[in-house]
């Protein structure tokens, strides 16, 4: 019975739709090559499950917490997550997300997201002025 709740709440597919840049066309420079097949079907069998992995884990954990301790437990936790998520540096600087990591308990674990694609070594950087303007809604 518990499993039925978990599976039904699984987050559906997002992000496979065409990524239109400016002028409504695929921005090849920033987002790479596009093909219709890749936008309709996942390009890797694990793409969907990995994209939604953290969300699904959270949904499952919150469901269990709700069933054991009552509705207040996941509500309070989600409120704390929302507050921790707002602690960020300026838009173009990498944030450590320390509070969020501590809440999740992922501050003492290492996964592929830490080894590969380290944001400190990212080859792309947005222009600071443009990114701040975008964040403030002025752009």
């Amino acid at each position, binding site marked *: 019975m518990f499993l039925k709740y978990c599976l039904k709440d699984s987050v559906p597919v997002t*992000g496979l739709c065409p990524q239109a840049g400016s002028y409504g066309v695929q921005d090849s420079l920033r987002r*790479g*090559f596009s093909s219709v097949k*890749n936008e309709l079907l*996942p*390009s*890797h*069998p*694990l*793409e969907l*499950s*990995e*994209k*939604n*992995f*953290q*969300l699904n884990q959270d949904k499952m954990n919150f469901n269990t917490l709700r069933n054991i301790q009552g509705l207040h437990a996941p509500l309070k936790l989600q409120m704390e997550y929302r507050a921790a998520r707002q602690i960020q540096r300026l838009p173009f600087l*990498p*944030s450590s*997300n320390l509070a*969020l990591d501590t809440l999740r308990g992922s501050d*003492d*674990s*290492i*996964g*592929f*997201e*830490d*080894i*590969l*694609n380290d*944001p400190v070594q990212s080859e792309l950087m947005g222009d600071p002025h443009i990114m701040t303007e975008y964040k403030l809604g002025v752009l």
Partner: protein
Amino acid sequence: KCPLVVSRTFWGKNIKCVCFYRNALLEADINKLGFSSPAARKTGTTICGVVYKDGVVLGADTRATEGMVVADKNCSKIHYISPNIYCCGAGTAADTEMTTQIISSNLELHSLSTGRLPRVTTANRMLKQMLFRYQGYIGAALVLGGVDCNGPHLYSIYPHGSTDKLPYVTMGSGSLAAMAVFEDRYRPNMEEEEAKRLVRDAIAAGIFNDLGSGSNIDLCVITKGKVDYLRPHDMANKKGVRTGSYRYKHGTTGVLTKAVTPLNLEVVEESVQTMDTS
């Protein structure tokens, strides 16, 4: 093949499958041109482990293959996980290496957090959860063994995430040959020397009867408080020594004619450019 790349700052929203796109595009083009894409380096292997009276003996061969070619004649397949836990890896070499290193790091952080020596079952659960998450795309078949507060333990872990807790296990392409030796001669509560001989013979069976395994036999004996990493324990396949010298003596080839042409070169310009070593 390149793994999926996840950006941590966006909590899983920013999966970049760029490597997979690129590989798919390249593979289509390469096949049209008549070439074939590079093969992953595998450890076609024999690895095994046995539980004896005081602990665990793990054994492995040392050959790494890349298709039909031996890529490494003496690679190390017994990986360190924690001071009391070691893990042999078969399958794709990069996968076993990275998987064991990630689990070793996580186990170290975990043991610092709990303040206790890590348990083998913790490593087993971490490995099985990670491998199941990636649904077998991480090609790592592992034999995990160690001694903790509850005694000696031995697990075999398959690439899709299933595990078995057994007194003797074998994995890899030579696993059938090694298992035949175990099935014949295993008995519970062996002495250390007998267990080492049994594992050595099992790996030797894999080395001599399976093309994917070869070279030397490595052993790792884990007991409470002590680890003996014997590399190599037995050089089953020593490279041959050349008995004679094939170099020709001076004057072997007779000289018929000799013509010397001096090249008159003169220095036109000489300039010094210092390197910027700052």
